[in-house]
């Protein structure tokens, strides 16, 4: 089990992390979600031992690892840009962690066999003799993962693992990573700024902003019960209705009487729904509404009235 207690980090007097506390249960898949610059990478690096906190502690199975160097922590770290060793073959990259062991280093044969095994696991069998420059982005990503798994880490940390990949590869790799995590019984933390990714993959999501944890919860909780206006905004789409009401586009419906008047700007198909874009007559705020694709779509220029089915209030 990993526990982070009241972590603080400053770079040149600028607070990057403030009073961060969280715990990770064995087998959990945790997402650190937040906009760029919110301190996700820094937190991940401190947990790995690549960076050191100013205050607070990191406990692994109850033991403070703050004094332990990165090489002794046995965490797998997958870097945002993979950081593969360009002068080594794929198999040598994967075997590196075993080949630098000081104590009980396996014989060369065994390292090679283990590398092959891991490459099969990440579906790259047969590519062991290639060099990283001869692989696609998605393949490099999986080499980086296999390399990190070779040391049998207690904890797997991934920094924006899909950040540099195109949409299709991303989607495939996501699901595959989720399966691998379950299959191998890993404990993993991954960083992302993509809320969809976090909600789809993680057991629990840690939402961060400006070095502070805004909310920790299951994807369901984060989406349905956002704890702060920031979370409601950052996770999923949100409309601002008067009186501090935050409403999801699919939680609005058209009514004959009452509700709020909306001047329709634009209507288009978005997947299985009509997406209506308009302006609140009262406040001038932009509103987005999702309507059942089976229902008639309002015309641009028309004025409709909408009412929330469900909303979250954050005060005036």
């Amino acid at each position, binding site marked *: 089990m990993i526990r982070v207690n009241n972590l603080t980090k400053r770079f040149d007097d600028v607070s990057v992390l403030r009073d961060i506390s969280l715990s990770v249960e064995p087998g959990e898949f945790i997402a650190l979600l937040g906009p760029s610059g919110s301190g996700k990478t820094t937190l991940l690096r401190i947990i*790995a031992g*690549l960076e050191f906190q100013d205050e607070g502690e990191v406990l692994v199975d109850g033991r403070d690892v703050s004094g332990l*160097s*990165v*090489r002794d*922590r*046995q*965490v*797998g*770290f997958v*870097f945002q*840009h993979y*950081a*593969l*060793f*360009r*002068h*080594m073959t794929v198999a040598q990259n994967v075997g*590196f*962690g075993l080949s*630098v*062991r*000081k104590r009980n280093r396996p014989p060369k044969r065994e390292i090679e066999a283990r590398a092959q095994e891991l490459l099969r696991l990440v579906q790259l069998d047969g590519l062991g003799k*290639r*060099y990283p*420059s*001869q692989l696609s982005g998605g393949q490099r990503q999986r080499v980086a993962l296999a*390399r*990190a798994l*070779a*040391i049998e880490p207690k904890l797997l940390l991934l920094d924006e693992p899909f950040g540099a990949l195109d949409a299709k590869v991303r989607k495939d790799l996501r699901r595959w990573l989720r399966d691998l995590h379950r299959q191998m019984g890993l404990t993993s933390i991954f960083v992302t700024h993509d809320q969809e990714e976090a909600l789809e993959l993680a057991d629990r999501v840690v939402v961060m902003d400006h070095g502070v944890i805004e909310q920790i919860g299951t994807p369901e909780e984060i989406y349905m019960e956002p704890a702060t206006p920031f979370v409601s905004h950052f996770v999923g789409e949100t409309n601002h209705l008067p009186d501090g009401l935050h409403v999801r586009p699919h939680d609005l419906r058209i009514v004959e009487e009452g509700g709020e008047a909306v001047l329709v700007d634009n209507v288009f198909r978005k997947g299985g729904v009509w997406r209506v874009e308009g302006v609140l007559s009262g406040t001038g705020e932009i509103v987005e509404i999702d309507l059942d694709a089976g229902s008639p779509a309002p015309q641009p220029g028309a004025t409709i009235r909408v009412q929330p089915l469900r909303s979250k209030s954050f005060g005036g």
Partner: protein
Amino acid sequence: MTSLSLSRGRWRQPSVLPGFGLTFGVSVIWLSLIVLIPLATIFLRSAGMGWSDFVAAGFSDRALAAYRLSFGTAAAAGLVNVVFGLLIAWVLVRYSFPGKRVIGALVDLPFALPTAVAGIALTTIYAPSGWIGQFLDPLGVKVAFTPLGITIALIFIGLPFVVRSVEPVLADMGLEVEEAAATLGAGRAQTFFRIILPSILPALITGFAMAFARGVGEYGSVIFISGNMPGKTEIAPLLIVTQLEQYAYDGATAIATVMLVVSFAILLLLNGYQTLRRRRMGA
């Protein structure tokens, strides 16, 4: 037509910029005017000498000693520069400290300084009564007027080549691969010898090759510190000048030809290794 366009396709990389023919043509003409034709005249002249005359002048005992000295000291100086040039490049890339710009400029100074000035300065310092020489002399270490002195002059001349070729590669490599090695359990030495050194090896070899080539041909800074004793501390370029001064043009040409061939072979070898390595890595 088809075969022509095919063979053209193999030679040129497709590019958004037109003008392969023009740029390639200018390059060839330029290289010919500046490098090839002057060098060719040396070969032509030595070809007119007759074989036995050529061997007599180009492979005399005095000439052989001069080659050994020139190539030996240039190689030694190149190797020393590989070690210390890497160290300096490392410091310049990895650390920021006051005066960093000054150090950066200092590295390039051997490029700018008239080499004779460097030679005179080094001789003054390393002569038995000089600043540094007075401490080395009692230890029995003689620098001025020995091969060691020549090597030191060549180290001075060659340093910028190694620093400047390694620096961008080190900067480009960044910290992440080192951190990756550390997370995988590698210690400092393992990270240096298995990750950093192989990554910058091509740049080191390029730096060595340039420093070495420069050292082999260096004249100005060496003649003051070397003492110029035939067969002992007489470098090959000096031997050529000596021959010229005695109007022994054939002799000078023969020695120049031998130096050219050997230098070219060594540079070709180093370049060939680089190409092989690049091709293997598919980059």
